[in-house]
Every structure is written in structure tokens, then in C-alpha cells.
């Protein structure tokens, strides 16, 4: 017995049979009734759902804020650890740029 051939013919026959797409009378009414019976979320549930959905974006924002804040602190830290006797003085060079430099030998205390 050639199983492959028999199987192929069985499938061809199944393909050839017309599809039964009949619909029971007023089936759409049954579906719409079932849909309307579905429990609706109240305001509290919707609010809670919204809060949960906001968790991931908030975590990302918080992480960004923390990272940025730490970077700024590191940058400021170069100045923050300077001696209390330090004062900032203007430094004008002939090139026209104005900068600030630390003068650790100043006798005046900032504190």
C-alpha cells in the first residue's frame, strides 16, 4: 500500500469539499450580548492600570536623573575639595579668553 499516495488523495479530497460557513440565526445578537455583559473596568481600576503602566518609564527617568546628577556631582567635586583658603581670581590672557583659576596661596579665608 502506498501510504504517501493515499494520504495525498485524502488531503486533495478534503481540500475539494466545500467549506461550511453557515451562521446560526441572530448569532451576532448573541455575540453583542456577551460583549455587553463583559465586566467594565471602573475608574479606580483604570487609574491603577495607568499607574502600573507608568512604572517602567518612571524607573527609566529616575535612572537617567540619578546618572546625570552623579556626573554633575563628580564635576563639581573638583572644586568642592579645594582648600578653604582658596579663592577664585580672574585670569585674563592676551588671547582674550577669561577664565578662573584657583589661588591656593591667598591669605583670605572663604570660611
Amino acid at each position, binding site marked *: 500500500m502506498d501510504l504517501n499516495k493515499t494520504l495525498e488523495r*485524502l488531503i486533495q479530497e478534503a481540500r475539494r469539499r466545500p467549506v461550511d460557513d453557515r451562521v446560526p440565526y441572530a448569532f451576532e445578537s448573541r455575540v453583542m450580548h456577551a460583549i455587553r455583559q463583559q465586566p467594565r473596568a471602573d475608574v479606580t481600576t483604570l487609574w491603577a492600570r495607568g499607574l502600573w503602566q507608568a512604572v517602567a518609564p518612571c524607573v527609566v527617568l529616575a535612572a537617567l536623573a540619578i546618572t546625570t546628577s552623579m556626573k554633575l556631582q563628580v564635576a563639581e567635586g573638583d572644586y568642592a575639595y579645594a582648600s578653604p583658603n582658596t579663592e577664585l581670581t580672574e585670569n585674563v590672557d592676551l588671547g582674550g579668553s577669561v577664565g578662573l583659576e584657583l589661588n591656593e596661596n591667598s591669605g583670605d579665608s572663604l570660611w
Partner: protein
Amino acid sequence: MSLDTRQGGSPADDTSAVLAVLGGDVARFEEIVLRYQPRMFAMARRYARREDEVQDIVQEIFIKSFQRLNTWRQDAPFEHWLMRIGVRVCYDFLRGHQRNKESVLSDLTEDESRWLERAEAPGGGDSDGIDGDAAKSIVGRLLEQMSPSNRLIINLLEIEDKSVKEVAALTGWSVPLVKVRAFRARAEMKKLLQKLSLDKFL
């Protein structure tokens, strides 16, 4: 049960109805139900024999599609999106209703036995319309014995004649997975057919 097969409508009608439903006009969903229920019934009847089960499957498809309507991205046709939900509901039904495999492959009808004998005869006569129902019935018996994933693949790939890519899109499986499952499904079907043919002579 009376016949009611209203169809028609365009993609623009689908979009308009969906937007209206999402805007709060739930009654417009009935248009979508009317338009697609024949196709859903045709699909569900491939996976369930009892009419009450078929109706439950179709109702479930529409309820799920209503609940997930806001996930439809308008870049793909609504019909494809709905069919994907339909296939998944049918697959879930198969997984939840696996029958006792020993009971169904017994008691072939006279027509079914005759069809198999004719098919097995040397030179095997061409099947004709008279025995077409018997062939379909034999296929139904074989499919009921198969695992849900194999049965789904055979229905979509072989009987509905969809391409591998279409099956992958409908099921959410990758193309290689569809091919592997198709190979296994054919092997399982062949094994069951052999068993059926041997049992016939016992």
C-alpha cells in the same frame, strides 16, 4: 438552524467601524461580527465537530478581538489580524479538548472502508464525488488523533493550502518551526493512516 451569510464591506469600512468602537460606539462592532462570522464559522468547523463547541469558539474569537481592538495597528489588514486571533482561539480549543486517542480510530463506516480499499487497490481508482465525503470523514478521524500543533499545521498548510509564511504569520511561529512541525505532522498522519488501514483488517 437557518442560514445567514451576510458578507461584504471594504478595509475602509473595517477601519471606520473599529475607530467608532474605540471611540465608545460599541454597537458598531456588530458590523464587524456580521462581516466576518461566516469565515470564522468555516474556520471553527475544521477544529470542532459539535455545533455548540463551534459557536463557543466563534463567540470567543469575537470577544477576544473586541477586548484587544486597541492593539490593531492599521498598517495590516483587519481581516489578517482577526484571523490570527481566530487561529489562536482554535489552537487553544484543541489543547483544551484532546480526546481519548484510542476510541476514535475504530469502527470505520462502510463508505470509509470502501474508499480505503479502492485507494489501496493496485492502480488505485480515482476517487470521485460520491466517495468524497468518506475521504473527508477519514481525514477528520486522523486529525482528531493528532496533537493540537500537528493538527493545526495540517489544516492550515495542507487542507487550506496556505503558504509556510502565511502559517507562520497566523500562528506566531517562526518559519523554520512551521517547517519542522509540518514534517512531523505529515509523519504522524502517515503513521495513523497505516494504523487505520491495519485495524480495518482485524
